[in-house]
């Protein structure tokens, strides 16, 4: 026996999208089969999961040009922060070179579409990397300052204190105790 199937694509699309969004547990508004509005911020990891789940049905999420551009800026920043070599140019001109656009244009686009300025974003990313290196116990502050292109240890220490409100010494001390506490809390949730 042969069955002949007819499809109403828009209903099919809607059911699938609703099912997948339901799994993620996010509030949304269904405008039409090609446009869904998420009513809240969702973390990158969830968005990624949603993207993968929808991919199985051949549905892909189109990123807007603006989002792609912001993503490119973030990638350029990451490349510079993780390059490990001391460079004599300013970060701003490196970013400008990588994207082949003026720094002013890049920085404006960034702060218009995120809640932060590009300058603050770069500092935050650098300090995040500094934290990981400090906690790894493998590097001295001098080495870290060099790897992250600070002109001196003093400059790194100042920016660390300004960004986190803590000195690197008290940061290490607190994180150690905090990890102890959190490990215990995860292992004995009821107590």
């Amino acid at each position: 026996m042969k069955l002949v199937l007819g499809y109403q694509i828009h209903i099919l699309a809607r059911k699938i999208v609703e099912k997948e969004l339901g799994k993620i547990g996010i509030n949304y508004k269904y405008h039409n089969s090609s446009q869904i509005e998420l009513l809240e911020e969702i973390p990158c990891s969830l968005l990624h999961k949603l993207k993968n789940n929808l991919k199985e049905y051949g549905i892909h999420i189109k990123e807007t040009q603006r989002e792609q551009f912001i993503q490119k800026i973030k990638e350029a920043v990451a490349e510079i922060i993780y390059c490990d070599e001391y460079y004599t140019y300013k970060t701003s001109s490196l970013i400008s070179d990588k994207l082949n656009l003026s720094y002013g244009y890049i920085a404006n686009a960034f702060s218009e579409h995120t809640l932060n300025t590009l300058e603050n974003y770069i500092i935050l990313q650098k300090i995040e990397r500094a934290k990981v290196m400090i906690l790894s116990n493998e590097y001295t502050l001098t080495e870290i300052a060099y790897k992250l292109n600070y002109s001196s240890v003093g400059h790194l220490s100042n920016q660390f204190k300004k960004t986190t409100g803590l000195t690197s010494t008290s940061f290490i001390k607190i994180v150690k105790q905090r990890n102890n506490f959190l490990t215990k809390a995860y292992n004995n949730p009821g107590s």
Partner: protein
Amino acid sequence: MKNINILLADDDDDDRLFFGEALEQLELNISLNWVVNGVDLINYLKQPDTQLPELLFLDLNMPLKGGIECLIEIRKTNYLRNLSVAIYSTSSAEKDIEECLIHGANIYIKKPSDFNVLKSILHKAITINHQYHSSGLSKENFLMVI
């Protein structure tokens, strides 16, 4: 810009009012919910239909259940482990700051008495937290004292 969900747990009426006004003036598209003590806070967070906030501001001295107790309970609860918590307290004692950070707070804020200072502090806390939230940065090392 998408809506940012903020939750405030504070028993003091004036402080809540002050906080709400400062937040409103930031023009960041924020929706604020509040609870007035620690027991209400935990009940609220544990309701199945609660939309978890992007950032929780938690007062230390509250009736029924204090801030530290709430913080510990939050960190012991599976689905609340990654919730960003900013302690919002009148104490600037080193000991209190350390205790909160050790028990899993991400931000420690000393309540200012000046309105404009409060505005800039809230702006900093919300934008930096948003950076962690939206860039997929690990919150493992997210500690900050403002």
